[in-house]
Each structure stands twice: as structure tokens, then as C-alpha cells.
């Protein structure tokens, strides 16, 4: 799974700065945006465990959330493909006079993809009210920014497209909030795209399959985790104003962990969807050749079902 530690100000700050009418296209590290808008822990866990209760019907691997009710588009593993999608979405909104921006998140690594160049060029040429929010967290898996780009990061690329941009301390939740809020207002007022680059650091490994000690020093990680962590800085700020305390923090962390593990436990015991749901939603309505294959599988399972983990799935209909 993809981990989000050390990058929390990005989500809290940017999600809070957007309106729920702003459609969001995420990359994969933005569960914070989903949670901010009200995605429940049960929804998270049901998707991660691909249970029959998952709103995306167990179609994708963990963390590939989708939340139409919250105006957040589906995560796909392919990097940067969402960026031109967001631009087209914004264009449609613009010509239909919708009072909303379309926001899309991507990392500094994904920013190297051609889709991002194509999207920014189209957004500026066609005046699409789009927020390009780049999380520059120092690493794309093991590739540090020195192997990712030679120029001055991502924000300055906007100048090449005739686009407005801002670079923000991504570990300062208030700066992120204020910056994204201002970018949003600009995008709406001028029906234009704005590039926001959030400078931060990926404390965690890239994912549960990664061990980042293989490519960076523990001292480097510890520096960011202790000296310049978004949660740490916010905590210090609130504590200094008697709005928070380490006791409250410990209690809250404990409570969160309990909620998460309870939801985890609930989902873990749920069964997967009816296996025949595999054949639905390829097209808007069933195609004869898919129906034919569905029946082939059903017939196969009638005879060989004992060799399959059918007990871990809802019954065939």
C-alpha cells in the first residue's frame, strides 16, 4: 500500500482550501483528501480488502479509492494520466458555467510524464480553470529529485506555458491552505490554470513493498520527521497557544488507532463480492460475448468449484 506519512499538511491544507463542488483527480497518495471530505474508514477498509461492500466492487488493488458522492474521481495506478483528464473536466465545467475548479494532484516524479506537459499546455491555451497541485516530496520511489529534473523544480515550468504558479512550504498547513485558496480564487476569476508546488518530504517508504533505507540515510529521514514535519509543526504552534497538548495528542493518536483497527477488523472478516461481478461494467450494458464467458465460468465452477476459494466470496447468483 502507499503510505502518506510526512506529507499530511498537503492534504489537510489543500482539501480544506477546496470546495466540495471542486472535482478532484488524485494520484494515489491523497487519502487525506478523501478523509477530509468524509470518506469513512469503513469505505477505506472495504476497498483495501476488496470486500463485497466496496463501492468499487473489488475491482482494484488497495488504496485505489473512488468517491462520487464526495466528488473525487477514481484512483488509477498509471501516473499523470489524471492530469489531462482534469483539464478536460475543467473545460466542460467552464463552458457550462459551473462555479467550480478542477483540482488534480501529482508528485514531482509524475510531473516528468508527457501527460503533464500536454495537460498544462492545453489548460493554458484553452483557459481551463484547473489547479495543478504538485507534491514535491523529494523522492519518486528511490529516485531523488536530482535524478528527476535539472531545472528549478516544477513550479517554474508554468512560466513556459504562460501559466501562473506558486511554490509553497508544503509542511506548513496554513501556508498550504492560504496558497491553494488564493490559487483557486485566481483560477475561478480568470478561468485559468494555476500550478501549485508544495515542497515537502516523504518520511515514509514509497509503499509497503519498499525499504527506503536502501537509498537514503536514516539521518535524513529523522531530520524531516523531527525538525520539519507538518504535524509536528502544527502541534508546536497549537501547543504554544494552549490549544493542544502532548497528552491530548497521545490520547487522540490512541483513539484514531483504535478506530482504524476496528474498521480494519470489520473489513477483514467480510467476504469478497460475487465472483460473477467480474463480468459487469465493462460496457454500460452486457455484451453477448461477455455474457457467454460469464456462463462459461459459472459452468466451470459448478464442476471444479472445490478448487477455488469460493467460501471467501459472496455466493454466485
Amino acid at each position, binding site marked *: 500500500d502507499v503510505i502518506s506519512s510526512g506529507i499530511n499538511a498537503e492534504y489537510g491544507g489543500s482539501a480544506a482550501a477546496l470546495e466540495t463542488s471542486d472535482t478532484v483527480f488524485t494520484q494515489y497518495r491523497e487519502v487525506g483528501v478523501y478523509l477530509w471530505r468524509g470518506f469513512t474508514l469503513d469505505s477505506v477498509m472495504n476497498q483495501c480488502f476488496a470486500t463485497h461492500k466496496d463501492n468499487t466492487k473489488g475491482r482494484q488493488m488497495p488504496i485505489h479509492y*473512488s468517491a*462520487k458522492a464526495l466528488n473525487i474521481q*477514481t484512483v488509477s495506478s498509471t501516473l499523470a494520466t489524471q492530469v*489531462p483528464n482534469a483539464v478536460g473536466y475543467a473545460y*466542460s*465545467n467552464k463552458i457550462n458555467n459551473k462555479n467550480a475548479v478542477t483540482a488534480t494532484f501529482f508528485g514531482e516524479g509524475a510531473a516528468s510524464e*508527457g501527460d503533464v506537459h500536454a495537460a498544462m499546455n492545453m489548460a493554458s491555451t484553452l483557459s481551463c480553470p484547473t489547479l495543478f497541485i504538485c507534491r514535491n516530496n523529494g523522492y519518486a520511489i528511490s529516485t531523488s529529485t536530482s535524478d528527476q529534473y535539472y531545472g528549478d523544480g516544477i513550479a517554474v515550468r508554468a512560466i513556459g506555458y504562460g501559466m501562473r504558479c506558486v511554490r509553497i512550504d508544503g509542511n506548513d498547513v496554513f501556508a498550504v491552505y492560504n496558497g491553494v485558496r488564493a490559487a483557486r480564487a485566481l483560477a475561478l476569476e480568470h478561468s485559468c490554470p494555476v500550478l501549485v508546488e508544495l515542497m515537502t518530504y516523504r518520511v515514509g517508504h514509497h509503499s509497503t513493498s519498499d525499504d527506503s533505507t536502501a537509498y537514503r540515510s536514516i539521518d535524513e529521514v529523522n531530520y524531516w520527521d523531527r525538525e520539519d514535519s507538518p504535524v509536528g509543526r502544527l502541534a508546536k504552534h497549537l501547543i504554544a497557544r494552549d490549544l493542544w497538548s502532548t497528552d491530548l495528542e497521545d490520547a487522540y493518536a490512541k483513539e484514531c488507532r483504535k478506530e482504524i483497527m476496528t474498521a480494519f477488523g470489520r473489513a477483514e472478516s467480510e467476504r469478497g463480492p460475487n465472483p460473477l461481478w467480474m463480468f459487469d461494467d*465493462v460496457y454500460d450494458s452486457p455484451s453477448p460475448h*461477455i455474457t457467454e464467458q460469464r456462463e462459461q465460468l459459472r459452468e466451470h465452477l459448478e464442476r471444479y468449484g472445490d478448487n477455488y476459494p469460493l467460501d471467501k466470496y459472496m455466493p454466485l447468483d
Partner: protein
Amino acid sequence: SSGINAEYGSEMLCKRLLSKTGGLVSSVRHAAHFTYTPQTPPAHLGETTKLNMFQSINNALDIALGSDDSAVLFGEDVAFGGVFRCSLGLQDKYGASRVFNTPLTEQGIIGFGIGAAAAGSTAIAEIQFADYIFPGFDQLVNEAAKYRYRSGNEYDCGRLTVRAPWGAVGHGALYHSQSPEAYFAHTPGLKIVVPRGPIQAKGLLLSCILDNNPCIFFEPKILYRLAAEEVPLGTYTIPLSQAEIVRQGTDVTMIGWGTVVHVLLEVASMAEEQLGVSCEVIDLQTIAPYDAQTIEASVKKTGKAMVVHEAPLTQGFGAEIAARLQEKCFLHLEAPVQRVAGWDTPFPYIYEPFYLPDKWRCLDTVKKLVDFM
């Protein structure tokens, strides 16, 4: 339904080939490798007018934009009318926010189209040549095709239609002649459609635009001017995933799509005259999902089948059809299923007369089929 009217003689084509930047590349004259057989418009569709294929497509786009306020048409050079004139007059009529040029970026055009469709716009994206669709392959295969499925049907981009000029044009060589349908037919979630002429182009394109799945509509570019017939003026659709038996026959089933259907119609006449063989010519029309029922029924009747396409033989869509036919019609077959296709080379320039699955190779294949047993 369609019949065979007076055939035109082989036409001299005078065609200018535009480079991607709009400059003149070459001006050549070739005899087309086939004779276009004008199709008969269905009588119940009423009043007709003579249109060539780019005009009938222009008409379909006009109808789509006129009847659906959410419809937008975009791509390279569409504003002035498009390099093949398919969007002539449409920006003037519907305005620049609905008919507009994009920068030169197929991945951007298709990615943008997916997003616009997801937002509720009927998005009609033009790719200037099917040969240039590949920068957008990722968007089509990984995003458009999977948009609905991966979201558990919460989202879709069904309002997207991608159009691209397709197929041999006489002098197009490697990069202005390709028929890439096989790459996309392998992707569940996309629909792929190829018309054989102006009547079908209008009806099938309107179906694609109305269809609630992302569709790729390949337009045989050699037919844009060369193919002209009486086309119904009104709004009509031709159903997707339905093949059409263009010529009935009893001895050999011939399956093709696009330009090649006209080659097959000519071969069917030759086979009747020269060999006394009655050929049934089927236009598949929709490549994916295809109408297996019609072709299986035909092959069970004739016992002899051939699939013909310009795309290279290996892994061309004929391979799928051949596999299906031998699986479903095995006991009815009197000969192995034959394929006549472009050779397994890049589409060559000066060799084009030898490359294409022309009427002589197809006639020879008919002989092979009837002589097998």
C-alpha cells in the same frame, strides 16, 4: 439494406497528401486498387442527397452538435474545417467554445476528451491520422476503457468518441495508411467501428456519439472523396455490434470492414462470372464488440470462410475471427478459414500495389476455398 447499383469505373485519384504541419508533401495520381460500389439508402429513411464520405461525416457532426448542446468537437486543425474537411463550417455555426483547435498532442487530446466526457460533455475528439493515435494509447487503454469498470460503475466516460482517418490511401506509406483496430479490439471496454461508405459513416458515427461507452471511429480516408452516394438527409443511426450482409451468397463467406468490403464485392462478381461461385459478403462494421452470430450463421451455411483486412496478417483482427469460426463452425467447415491481409511488414510506399489484399489475392483465395475438398 443495400444493393449493387451501377458500378463506377476505376477512378483516377488526384490527392494531395498533407503533412502533419499542413504543408504539401506530395501530389500523386494513382488508380485506386478497387472500385467503389455505391450503396442504396434504405427507402424508409426518406429524402436523400448525394454526399461523399467527408460530407456525410460533416453532416453527422452537424446533427450531433445541433441536437446536443453539450457536444464539443476538438482536435488539431478542426477549426478551419480539418485536413480532410470533416469539420467544415462547424466552428462558424456552433462557435469556438464548442468547435476548437487543440495543441498538437494526441495524448492531451484524448486525455482531455476523457475528462470532458466524464464531466458530462459529449466529447468528439479528432486524431488527424490513425497512425498518430499511439501517443494516446495509454489514455485509451488504461483510462477510457477502464473508467467505468474500475469505479464500480460510479463513473464513466461513455460520452467520448474518438475519430481518426484510417487505412490505405494509395501513397500513404508507413505513417498515413495504418489500420490499428487490432490493438484496440484487444482492450475490453472500448468499441471500435469502421464504416464502408457515406451512408454507413453517418449512421454509425451517430450511433458512436450516442453510445454510452468510449468509441473509436476509424474513417477509411481513401473513401472521403472517392465514395459518393445518395445519403439520407435526416437523422438516422445504424446499430453497433451488428454486421451487415451486403451481398447474399451460398458458397463462400467473405468478411471484411471499411474499404476492403468494396474489394470483396468486386471479387464476388468476378467469382460468379468466372467460377460460378456464389459469395456472401459481410461488412463487420463494429470490430469490437463484434457480431459473431451473423458471421457464424453465414459460415455454417457456406462452409467456407475468408477474412480480409489491410492490417498485417499476424495478430490482425482476422486472427480473432478465424479462431472463433473454427471453434463455433468446425463441423460445418469444408476448408480451413482463410485470411487475406497486408503482409507482415510496415506499410510500404512504392510497394503498395503488392502489399494490399487486392482482388487478385482474394479471387485466388476463393479458388483455394472451393478447390480444397
